[in-house]
Each structure stands twice: as structure tokens, then as C-alpha cells.
């Protein structure tokens, strides 16, 4: 069939990660997926390749620097064709670096953001090649698309 793509999947731990893994579970058969997650508690399942990165949130901006260095290194080493993120801060870092490295980027805004696009999503709304919300009413059908949700 069509060619397999290498996808770099990255998110914060917790709910963002749960959503990311549920989406990737449906993509692993078609694509090679490399993960990055700021969490030491997670154990990979089977063949999954997971990089552990520095935990970063909007509250501790100085950690964005080591996080960006790590993500940059992984991108240069793995050379993915696509970056996929559900947020939050580590996803922003990856999308911005992806833009720099000319890698195709896909953002799926967390289902938790029902009233408005997330703060991290707002930062990459105009940067990501594909920007998805999981709520139909938040879609503008141009830049912000609704194509389904994890629940």
C-alpha cells in the first residue's frame, strides 16, 4: 500500500498523553511512531520507542530551554516526516522546532478545552500545518478544523 511515515508524537503527561496514545493506537499499524513524554513513571508497551524529556509547563518557562534542546536533538536524530501533538507546552516546543526544520506538524487540541482553544493551542494555531479541535463549535472550518474526537 502507500508508504509508511515516521511520526514524532509528543505531549505532556496525564490527560494529554492519554489522548495522544489513543490516537496513535489507531496509527501504529500504518506508521512508525516515536514518542516523547516528560514522565519517568511510564513504561513502554512492547515495541514502542519512547524518549523521556524534561517536564515543562507554562508555569516554569526556563525549562523550555532544556526541553527545546532535547526535542531538537530527537528531531535531528530521528528525522520524522510528521510531528503530532495533543499539547501542552512540550507540544508547542515541538511544533515550533518542526516549523524551523520544515517538518509537517499536526496539532490536536485537548478535549478538555471546550469553551475555547487551549492557551498552548493559541500559540501554535497559525504555525501548525493542520490544527484540529475536538469540539465542533470551536471550529472555524478553515484554520481550526473539527474531524472527530477521542470520546
Amino acid at each position, binding site marked *: 500500500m*502507500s508508504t509508511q511515515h515516521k511520526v514524532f508524537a509528543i505531549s505532556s503527561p496525564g490527560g494529554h498523553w*492519554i489522548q495522544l496514545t489513543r490516537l496513535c493506537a489507531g496509527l501504529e499499524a500504518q506508521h512508525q511512531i516515536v514518542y516523547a513524554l516528560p*514522565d519517568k513513571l511510564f513504561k513502554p508497551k512492547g515495541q514502542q520507542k519512547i524518549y523521556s524529556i524534561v517536564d515543562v509547563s507554562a508555569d516554569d518557562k526556563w525549562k523550555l530551554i532544556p526541553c527545546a534542546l532535547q526535542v531538537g536533538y530527537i528531531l535531528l536524530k530521528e528525522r520524522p516526516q510528521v510531528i503530532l501533538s495533543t499539547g501542552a507546552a512540550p507540544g508547542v516546543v515541538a511544533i515550533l522546532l518542526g516549523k524551523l526544520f520544515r517538518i*509537517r506538524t499536526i496539532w490536536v487540541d485537548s478535549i*478538555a478545552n471546550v469553551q475555547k482553544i487551549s492557551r498552548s493551542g493559541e500559540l501554535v494555531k497559525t504555525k501548525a500545518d493542520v490544527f484540529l479541535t475536538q469540539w465542533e463549535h470551536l471550529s472555524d472550518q478553515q484554520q481550526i478544523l473539527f*474531524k*472527530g474526537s477521542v470520546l
Partner: protein
Amino acid sequence: MIFVAVGTQFPFDRLIRCVDEWAAAQGIEVLAQIATGGYLPKHARYERFMTTEAFNTALQQASLIISHAGMGNIITAIESSKPIIVMNRQYELGEHRNNHQADGLEWMAKLPGVYTAKTCEDLRILLDQHDNLSAGSQLGHERRQRLINFIDQAIRA
């Protein structure tokens, strides 16, 4: 056994204390995941953080899940066919960095098998009828598959 989990980012003492005090009075077994909480349960067993493996084991053994209004726990509870009560963190009480969990509570309440509480009083009313709380059915398969198919196409584009 009731499993109460507050996620990894922040403590949620208001929730842990509420469940602990209720369970102590009722003599019901509780396992609590309390993150960096300052309130240490007097009745419930507790862990601060759990591996995914330990978390999943606790989830399977529990008859009821109680959680902060975080997406991760709701998704896993629904997938495991367990009823879940969620209480939202309040920005005003310094429990989160914004109030999105309060916004989320409105639509979460519409999911079958998900029960919502804003206060300890709300939570106690639900806990007093915990035997009658039932799990939702697996839902949203079609919506999830549609999203995955779209992402698959976007990856290939």
C-alpha cells in the same frame, strides 16, 4: 474498593480529605493517589504517584473511581467500564492554573457513567448512593475513528 486519583500536576487536598472522612465513617476501603498533597489520609491507603501499571491495577480492582476533572482519568474509567465521579479543581482556591476543569464539568456530566460534583457536599450525596452508580458503555468509537482516519490522511499529505 474505591480508587481516588488526583493526577500528577497538583495536589487536591479538598477532594482527598472529603473522600477519606466519608470512607472512615462508612468503613469503606479506599486507595488514594494524592500527588504532592499536604493532607495525608487517616483512613485510606495512599500513594503519592503511581506507575501506569500500578494505576491500571488499582483501576481494575476498584468498583468506583473518584477523580479530579481531568481527561485522562475519565477516558481510562470509561474504557474500563467503571463509574467515575469527578470533582473540578477551582482556580479561586488555588487548585489549578485556570478554571478549565469547571468548564469541563458541564459536558462531562453528559457522558454516561460520569457523575460530577463541585463541592464536598455534592460528592457526599453521590457517595451515599455509590452502590447505584453505574458505568457508561463504550462510546465515541465512531468519532474517534473518524479523527484517526483524518490524521492518517494528514500524515500522508
